[in-house]
Each structure stands twice: as C-alpha cells, then as structure tokens.
C-alpha cells in the first residue's frame, strides 16, 4: 500500500522554480532515498511533503487522506515525523527535558491527562519512559546536560529520538549522516535498517553519501533541477543512462 502518493507538486520562489510537476510515491515499510545534486530541490520536496510549506500546485495523499492543505503539525498528528539537516533541539534544556517535552506532546495528541497544560511537573511515568529511551540510544549518561553541549552525532541521534517518541508511521530524515565520522555513519545505517525491519517504520530520506544511500535504500529516486528523472530499485536506477550522465557522469561515487 502506498503511504504517500503525491503528484503535480510545483513550488517556486519569486525568482526560481524549485519543483516542477513532481510525482512521488512512498510505499509502506520501504526505505525511500531521494538523491540529487545540490540545489536539485530535495530539501524543498521534503518541506512540501512534511507540510512545512505548501506547494503552489499538486496534491499529496497520506494514508488515503488528502493532506495537501494540512499544516506540518496536523500531519504529525497523523503519523509523520521529520528531522532536519542541522539537528533542531532545545539547546538550553537538558537532554532529558528534551525527551520529556516530546513525550508530553505525544500525550497531548492522545488527549491523555499527562499532557494537560496545567500540569506543573511532567508525570513520573513520562520521566521514566524518557530515561529508558535515552538509555536505549546510549544517551542516558548525558541526561542532565544541556542539549547544546552534545556532540554533533549525539544531537542527530537525540533529534531522531524525539521524532520517534511520537510513534510515527513515516519518518522523513534530511541527510541523517551529514557531517558524521564514518563509524557513526555505519551505526546510523544500522539503526535505520533496524527501525524499518523490526519496528515496521517507513522512511523517506535524502542523503549525499553514496555508501549510506546504497546501504539502506530499498528504493531510489533521483531529482535534478526540480524534476524526477528516475525512480525505482537502487541498482536499476544506478544503471539508468540519464542518471549515469548527469549524476554519476564524472565517474565518482559521490555527488
């Protein structure tokens, strides 16, 4: 079943058209990676699909429902999560409180009393759940530190953790390994594959690093100047003549 069906997506800034009539589908439980050279429109496509901005034309269906005009927060309620290229965290808050806040948001969405605005301190159960989640990502040692003091890789992991705390069905990861050391990248690839295989999540990603791309993609879409030029099985896409020409044309494995 297709979790996301989008077609005709068009987005233009005053001086430049970034997306031109883009159609994309994301099947349930696939790991769909969007690649393309810088400026191809990957991040804009992400923004449009996640509801951060609205397209000027086109429609997006999520899980059978038309979500084109729904704001990001409403799509989150329906099970979409998203991380950013540069991790966005509450830097002044402790690592623990970052997670507790995400859990409180989840409780609010569920309408549970643990998320009501008049609660002075977060429910004990949420604090404990937060610690467990931190422990499973090896971040429990840093629970009391301000999030701003974390290393780059830990920040990205914490952001993923916040996103997962809401129990999404689909998560959109914008360059999840950007700026990471090779061993960290391999850990992220393993983690993402585990999420898909064990927890049944659907993933939509952008990525620059080809090793990462082919390590986790079950489907590959290539975007160039706002247009999709190929989409399908990663190996097939790799052999596509147009892709070879404009993307791998210079013979390298990196974009």
């Amino acid at each position, binding site marked *: 079943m297709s979790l996301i069906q989008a077609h005709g997506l068009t987005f233009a800034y005053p001086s430049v058209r970034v997306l031109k009539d883009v159609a994309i589908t994301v099947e349930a439980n696939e790991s769909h990676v969007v690649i393309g050279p810088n400026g191809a429109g990957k991040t804009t496509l992400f923004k449009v699909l*996640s509801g*951060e901005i609205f397209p000027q034309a086109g429609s997006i269906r999520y899980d059978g429902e038309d979500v084109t005009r729904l*704001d*990001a*927060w*409403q799509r*989150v*309620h329906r099970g979409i*999560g*998203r991380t*950013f290229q540069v991790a*966005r*965290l*509450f*830097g*002044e*808050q*402790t690592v*623990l*409180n970052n997670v507790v*806040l*995400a859990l*409180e*948001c*989840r409780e*609010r*969405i569920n309408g549970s009393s643990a*998320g*009501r*605005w*008049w*609660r*002075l*301190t*977060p429910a004990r159960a949420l*604090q*404990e759940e*937060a*610690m*467990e989640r*931190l*422990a499973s990502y090896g971040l*429990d040692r840093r*629970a*009391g530190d*301000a999030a701003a003091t974390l290393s780059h890789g830990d920040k990205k992991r914490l*952001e993923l953790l*916040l*996103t997962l705390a*809401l129990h999404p069905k689909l998560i959109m990861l914008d360059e999840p390994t950007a700026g990471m050391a090779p061993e960290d990248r391999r850990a992220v690839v393993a983690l993402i594959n585990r999420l898909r295989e064990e927890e049944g999540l659907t993933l939509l990603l952008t990525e620059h690093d080809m090793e990462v791309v082919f390590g986790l993609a079950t489907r590959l879409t290539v975007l160039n100047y706002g247009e999709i030029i190929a989409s399908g099985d990663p190996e097939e896409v790799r052999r596509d003549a147009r892709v070879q020409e404009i993307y791998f044309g210079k013979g390298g494995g990196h974009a």
Partner: protein
Amino acid sequence: MPHPPQSRPFGVLTPLAAGLVLAAFATLPFWAGKGLVFLAGIVLVQIVFALSFNLMFGLTGLVSFGQAAFFAAGAYASAWLARSAPGLPFILSIAFGAAVGAALSFLIGLVALRRASGIYFAILTLALGQLIYTVIGKTTALGREDGLIGIARPVLDFGLFRVDLATGDRYYFLLVVAAAIISGALWWVWHGSLGRILAAIRQEPERVRFLGVDVRRHREYAFLISGTMTALAGALMAPWSQIITPMIAHWSYSALPILFCLLGGSARFWGPAVGAIVFAGLEHGTRNMTGMAELVVGGALLLVVLAMPGGILGTLARLSGRPAREGAR
C-alpha cells in the same frame, strides 16, 4: 531500569527571597512614609505588568512594543464601568477590564502573529498600540487627553460586612494580595506544561511544530494570557492612582516592561519583578537630582546591559555557578 537524575525543580532560595520581598511589601505601611507606600503600590502593579509581559517576551520569545495598549485597555475599561454603574461590585469592573484586554489581545494577536514576526512584529504592535493611544485620547467618554480623574476606590461588599477600600492603606493591602495571587498564577503557567512548550517554541519553533504542536496557536495563547494579565494589572492600578491618562497607552509606557525584564533578567520568572523594584529605586533615588536624572538613569541602565547581559538575576546565577536559564537543571 534507569532512573531520571534527581530533579531539583524549585530550589529553596527563590521562594525564600520571594517571601521576604512579599513580607517587605506587606509590612511597608507600618514602617514607611505615605509617598513610598503609594510608590510601592505602583511598583506592585508594574511587577504584575512586567511578569505578564515576560510570559510572552522572555518565555515565548515574542517582542511586542504595544503592551501598554492592553494595560490602558484594562485600566480604562474598568474605570469607565465603575463610573458608569457605581453600584456594581468591584470584582465585576476588574473582570470587565481584564475581559476587554483579553478581547483586544486576542484580536491583535490573531492579526499581528499571522502577518509578522521578529522586529516587524514589534513595530506592528507598536503602530497598533499607538492607534489605541490616539483613539483613547480622542474619545470623550474616556476623558480625551486629560484622562479619567477622581476614580473612586471601591467598597467590597461581603454580604455580612463591608470593607471600604478608600480608608487608610486598605487598597494597598488588596494590591499586595492581588499581586501575590496573580504572580502565583503566572508562575504556574511559566513552570507548567504550557510554559515548557512556550519555552521550546522560543528556542526551536520548527522542532515544536514537528512534535505536533500548532505553534501559531500557542503564540496566540501566550499573547492572549499576557495581554489579559496586563489588562488586569491596569484595572488594579486605576483605583490606586485614581487618575489615568492616555500616557499609560503610549509607546514609552510599553518600553517599561521590556526595561524591567532585561534589567532583572528575562530568562527567569522573577527577573522582571527584580527589574521593576530596582528601576523604581533608581528613579526614586534620583527624583530630586533634576537635570541629572537622565544621565544617572541612562548611565546605570547602560552599565547593567553591558556588564550584566543576563540581567541582575542572570548575573547572580552565573556568579553562583547556576545555569543562566531556568529549566536547564
């Protein structure tokens, strides 16, 4: 199973200090002169004003330059009602002031937050505030530029007995109690679940949005709560000063809470209260240095801003090795 680190939500020092200041305010009429008591009443109102403002400013990260409009709305609306219907219970006229402030801040928040952010939001609120200032100054029912004079202090009717707040320092004590209750309510909002979300919105609104929170709606909440409480402060001031002029809607009056917040430290709940008290002390201390007052107040402010970027409380916290902001514990 791992346990959360021992959280020290609220230390013992802050309530102790707050209690001492409250005690100082509550006992003031017994050991200070009439002028100082009156000034202290104004400072209490300004504390409520600044604490309300900081919910939007220091917590949510919205800079409004038109907050005085809500203060004036509360003051004028309650005074106008009390004057038009003299028999009405005091609590109703106060509630009416707060309601008018709520309606106004709801409307302005709805429009301004939809259209502008950052410095544009600040100037938009400034322009809307100046409009309200001008309209008040041209409205005959509100006394035009000369304002409303001779606002009566109310009589509280408890059925069995009546308390005439016009006698002695009774209205002052009412102000102390009201300021304590309102500050307590604001404290609750600031530290509670809603406050945590508002603080998160200040730091990283996009992340909050992707945690499923309607960010604009929550900014509107902050603006609304802040505007309503500010109007409440205005409504409380009218019977105390017994005269209100359009000056309380002027932009320079909107600058006051910003000043208090930054002076005391906008990152901490009690910062604005400290700022209001210190600023009043500074102004009162220099009141007879005519001609020098601007130099002294300006110099002191500049010094504080340059030498104490976290405000007074932020600097005290840094000196004592605590984090600059509450919540990071």
